[in-house]
């Protein structure tokens, strides 16, 4: 259903656009496809009416020398200059880029993209929280019409003290004891650790000498009850045991007060009756 709607929208959109297209592009009588042998042709450089034919223009760095002789009245640069009075980057670059005169000029888009990579090496917007947005804005990040895109990926602030991430409430540094634990590679034929011995100094396997605890705080099992150490059991034989249904209230590891209601009355076995925790099983 969803799909049908989308297709319908597309179809209607196609018809709508096609009607525009045929009105506006009547001159285009054949289909074109740049995959197949289309030939690009270079354009003609504008011919200037100036007496000086030196195309290098010695006046690049002096706005004061600019006069109407050097550029079109209608050029982008001249329009810009009429509006702003002067152009900060040596105006020819605007007109050159716009008219395709010098695609490799130092302020062209190619360089603009290069600056954008620096994650804020040119951190013009500094601490602005909006700088992140410019990185994805195709107009500022990629505009072929000017060098402003150079500031596009204003990432300097991205990682800074006022960064995108640190402004998220509650998302702060998480301590080591809340580190997500290793759950294996997820691949068959491997196991926890994968036989790798570089994980650190946690001890050998099977653990021979893990430090014993006198008590721990166990918040995951009913708040902050204190669980006593689970002492080793001294007997080595399994006690005989007759199973009988009983009311059982887990978790038994927390019942060191002995509050549990019923119990079976089988024999011996545990030397840990004082602690009440779960013993080592035979």
């Amino acid at each position: 259903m969803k799909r049908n709607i989308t297709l319908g929208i597309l179809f209607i959109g196609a018809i709508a656009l096609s009607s525009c297209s045929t009105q506006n592009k009547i001159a285009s009588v054949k289909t074109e496809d740049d995959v197949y042998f289309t030939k690009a042709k270079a354009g003609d450089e504008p011919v200037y009416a100036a007496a000086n034919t030196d195309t290098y223009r010695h006046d690049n760095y002096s706005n004061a020398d600019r006069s109407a002789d050097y550029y079109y009245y209608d050029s982008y640069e001249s329009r810009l200059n009429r509006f702003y009075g002067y152009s900060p980057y040596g105006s020819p670059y605007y007109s050159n880029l716009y008219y395709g005169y010098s695609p490799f000029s130092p302020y062209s888009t190619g360089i603009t993209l290069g600056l954008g990579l620096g994650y804020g090496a040119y951190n013009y917007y500094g601490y602005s929280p909006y700088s992140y947005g410019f990185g994805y804005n195709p107009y500022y990040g990629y505009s072929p019409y000017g060098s402003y895109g150079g500031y596009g990926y204003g990432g300097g602030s991205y990682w800074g003290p006022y960064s995108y991430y640190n402004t998220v409430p509650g998302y702060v540094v998480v301590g080591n004891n809340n580190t997500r634990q290793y759950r294996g590679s997820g691949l068959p034929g491997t196991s926890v650790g994968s036989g790798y011995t570089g994980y650190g100094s946690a001890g050998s396997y099977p653990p021979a000498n893990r430090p014993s605890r006198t008590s721990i705080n166990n918040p995951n099992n009913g708040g902050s009850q204190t669980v006593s150490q689970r002492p080793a059991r001294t007997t080595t034989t399994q006690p005989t045991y007759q199973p009988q249904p009983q009311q059982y209230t887990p978790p038994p590891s927390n019942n060191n007060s002995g509050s549990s209601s019923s119990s079976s009355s089988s024999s011996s076995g545990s030397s840990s009756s004082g602690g009440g925790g779960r013993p080592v099983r035979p």
Partner: protein
Amino acid sequence: MKIKYILTVVTIVAITQHSFAQFSEDAVRFSQSQYGSTARMKAIGNAQTAIGGDLSSISGNPAGIGFFTKSEASFTPEFNATGVKSSYLGQTGNANSNNLNFNNASVVFYTKVNSPAGADKGKGWLSVNFGASYNRSANYYEAIGYQGTNSTNSITNYYADLANSGGIDNGSSLQDFAYDHQLIDLYTGNIYKSNVFNTNGAPNKPVNQNENIIREGGQTEFSFSVGANYSNQLYIGGGIGITSIRYNMTRAFNETGSASILDNNNQPITVNYNSSFTQDQATTGTGFNLRLGLIYKPVEAVRVGFQFTSPTWYTVQDDYAEGLQTTFSGNATGTLRSGPEDYQTTYSFNSPLKASAGLAFFIGKSGFITGDVEYIDYSSISLSTGDGYNNAAPDNHDIKTLYKSTANAHVGGELKLDQLYLRAGYGVQGNPYKYIGNNTNTISGGLGYRFIGGYYLDVTYANVNGTQQTAPYTLVASGAPTASLNKTTNNVFLTFGFRF
């Protein structure tokens, strides 16, 4: 054989520290993205390296945008239907996921280079074109479900392995949960063992296991490229990509069986248990990469293309939670809940660099055939530590030892019947896993039509099929169960484009 070898090594020694994370699987997952492309390129198997002049070049081989002689734009929605057939312990299952997405939007601006009047207008630098595109480069939507009866081990054996390697201490780790739920106990010899399957008289009865996994999200990329045309023969280009990851996963592993637990007097009793291990993950990330490309026409009918894509440098925020719930019945009753314990982590990683070469032969203006080969070394993925992730060594070790370099190959062709286009393609995505897995194959076909006036419509169908194995849990001893997942994705892409 190799797996056996690994298992031997594993059995000899397994030492682990409990304060590190597991992200290798995700890093590999996020590294398996495709170049964004239009329906046209998708129809010819995404063999885009040597073909220029299509908007796919913006996120693929940027040299290809040097071919444009007019500005052009297009957009491509997609429909994906993903089905996963599972096989687990002899039982088969099936799960499906359908979704509609926006796959691609592209624009190229044609910019003519001027030369002095009277110069040969077909020689030298003729145009410098700029392109920008939005691409959906990976699709993570899938639903997986499998179940089976396991008569040799249980997930509680995995918990015991965790306890033996990481210890039981602070009360918030998975093995602590399992201990609290009496699924494992400390046995003589100071060793944790399963209370379901072990050598000390646990019930050792078959358990029923099932797992459901739902994955969502995708990866998108904004690509910005520039391409230049030299004498209509040599095309060069470069670009950057800014990627964004959104990945959500929930999985629940459920097991029912019999366990021997200690009662209130520390006497063993046998109870029925129903235990669920749940994991929730929400991951976001951003990254960027660089691309360089070249296409050369030694003669008109032949195009040779090369493309280099740098590693993508990602920074990832990972929010992961796990919990355990166990219900006892029979000789003891009650329900225990632990967690969810939440872990927020930041880490960074780089995906492998990609290098590809392609060749295309044109039959006049009646069509072409093309192919390319792409090299990727998945074992070169490298993770770096971040907040909440202080040791990348285990993950990097997993990547080095469990993944390999591979090649992706694509071939395709197009037949141009005036305004109508017929296309077909085939692609093989190499298997990144060293010891398991298979290649993923893509079969595609499509139609296109170019209307008078400079606009066009392309429609493509692509069938992607691959089989992967996954282990719901892993064991130090051999015999951990493996689920075999055969994933089939049926995609439909529709591109509408116009020249201006």
